[in-house]
């Protein structure tokens, strides 16, 4: 007998929670801790820049793109619901909508950054505001990108007929990550565009 992978026995389904959900929640906790530190740094440095553009000067709240991102939480929820009922094609459509909304959000971030860098001359090295702003929003954007990559992978599986009703659990766990990304955006938006200005 060699040490090949032996299939794990399914955990006894008494009161024990499921591994995937617990694992994802713990990962979310870790990520939340990372974001908390960036948020703390952002808040600490509000008003402390010695030079350069201030938030009041250059920031405009990206309301439309935020609505897109937050709506994607709704669409992903609907997608998971559909898959739980076994409706793969409805699932695929809502899933695709989620990805589209996420991509629109990223597009919004990209245009905003383009404007900030080239028109307003705010870069990560301009001043404390630049450093903390790009780091915080960028870290969130990075998580959106990772999320979109995962979602796109699942979409590819769905379009090639590999996603079935019994995968609803796994897709649900992935959607937890996506909801987390949205919640982080709510916090980031509040801190950067409301409190910080």
């Amino acid at each position, binding site marked *: 007998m060699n040490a090949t992978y032996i299939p794990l*026995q399914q955990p*006894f389904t008494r009161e024990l929670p499921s591994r995937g959900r617990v694992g994802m929640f713990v990962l979310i906790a870790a990520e939340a801790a990372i974001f908390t530190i960036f948020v703390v740094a952002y808040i600490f440095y509000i008003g402390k820049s010695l030079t350069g553009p201030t938030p009041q000067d250059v920031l405009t709240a990206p309301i439309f793109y935020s609505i897109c991102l937050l709506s994607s939480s709704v669409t992903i929820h609907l997608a998971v619901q559909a898959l739980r009922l076994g409706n793969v094609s409805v699932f695929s459509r809502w899933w695709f909508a989620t990805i589209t909304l996420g991509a629109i959000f990223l597009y919004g971030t990209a245009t905003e950054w383009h404007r900030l860098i080239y028109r307003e001359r705010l870069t990560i090295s301009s001043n404390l505001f630049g450093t903390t702003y790009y780091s915080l929003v960028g870290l969130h954007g990075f998580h959106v990108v990772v999320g979109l990559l995962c979602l796109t992978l699942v979409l590819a599986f769905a379009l090639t007929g590999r996603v079935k009703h019994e995968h609803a659990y796994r897709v649900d766990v992935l959607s937890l990550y996506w909801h987390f990304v949205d919640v982080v955006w709510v916090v980031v938006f509040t801190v950067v565009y409301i409190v910080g200005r």
Partner: protein
Amino acid sequence: MSTDSIRWPQTETAAHPLVDKLHEWVTTVDHKRLGILYIIYALVFLLIGGIEATVIRIQLIRPHNDFVSPQVFNRMFTMHGTTMIFFVVMPVLFGFANYLIPLMIGARDMAFPRLNAFSFWMTAFGGLLLYFSLVGANGLYGAGNAPDVGWFAYAPLTSRTFSVGHSTDFWTLALLVSGFGSIGTAVNIIATVLCMRCPGMTLAKMPLFAWLNLVMASLVILAVSPLTAAQLMLLVDRYLGGHFFDTQAGGSAVIWMHFFWVFGHPEVYVLVIPAFAFASEIIPVFSRKAIFGYPVMVAATICIGFIGMSVWAHHMFTVGMSSAANTFFVISTMAIAVPTGIKIFNWLATMWGGKIEFKTPMLFCVAFLFQFLVAGLTGIMLGSAPFNWQLGNSYFVVAHFHYVIVGGILFTIFGAFYYWFPKMSGKMYSETLGKLHFWLFLIGFHLTFDFMHIPGLLGMPRRIYTYEPGRGWDVWNLIVTIGVFFQALGIVVFVANLVWSYFKGETAGSDPWDAWTLEWSTPSPPPAYNFAVIPTIKSRRPLWDLKHPADPDWKYE
């Protein structure tokens, strides 16, 4: 339920060529093998970190010594601290956790075996990256040099201005990478403990080892993440022109300290709580009594976890915080003494009225009790801000934390090695060599770290490559250095014992200690699937119940 008759087919595995064996080990996702990989990795770095410590102590054996240059010395203490914490103690603790938790909770593996393997290799790579700095940090043209900013790498010393070249980047990236490994392992531990216990094992019936590692893993999640964040910020400063810690641009050096110690303090609880776990398994077995006050032990550990997240700025008493802030951190630091003290009392009460057998694991755990007591008390002293203003950043602090990490944590780790070596290898270690290791190391430890408090009290700061004669520090430094050689000898005996016993030791059987938790019901070493049949348990000591059917634990719990 004798399992001595099941023998792992040794002959079959011996016939495999070396390449196949290596391939098995490199691609394994079995928690036991990954556990062993972690442990061996940690042992190798223990030797390297020990050499670094020896270099430090030789340099400090007398004033104005020139054994090494100041630049080399500064790299030595940076690498010693970073190596010991991230690439010795954390991996060895993760290794034992990985190996034992599934066995103790009646599971076949961890919750996420592939994540387990990924986490190990990330950690391993981080260590190699850190040491690659020795050749790579100045570019391959120069001799290269290791980081020299201290293991806590205060800003702005780490900025591009003051740390030229790439040595600081190696520090940052190595810890970033191994940090991802740590977080992965913590996710695995939490999911395993919460989701994979065997029937009958409610959380209240789990071995303390599983509980304490659950708390440790939660702390890793909450603590390593701030370090990850701070290191990303440092990289932004160093490479993208950011100003997180750039005091010239209005940034704050103090905020690095806050972020680092928000990681750094819970980190020491990450290190010590598994040590408590080892003690909580070993002391009852060798006292022949159940652990005294199981529910309180769990509650106290959870308290330590919570309070431990709120004490971090006691590392910053000298930084110039307001008296309100200083006072808050004094009270939270002293508060943590209460649950920690309770644990010491509980271990003492476990031994009280028992029939103590002083085998090597127990020797190490008894020494742990004495030493951890002292370490806790010097910690209380340091937790008092005015005391700290004198003793902080001096050799008193160095003595204190080595008392905890070596006298407390390393001693229980040695105990754990001896206790579970028979289970992991199927062989008994040599008790004579074990006791020799213990006494050599005990003498060396006390020579070094007892006397190290004194230069601190006499004003010797830490991280200095040499010191002036006539300050009254000379003889104490000499004694401290002498102790190192006893410890080194002890370690040599230890490694020799492990290696010799692995090949030539007596067969151990599945339960050489007459113990009570589930891992002792499997063969030694356990087969890949752990349990032929997943057990159903009724109490905290399932094997006690089997061995004492007239007097089982579940009647009393």
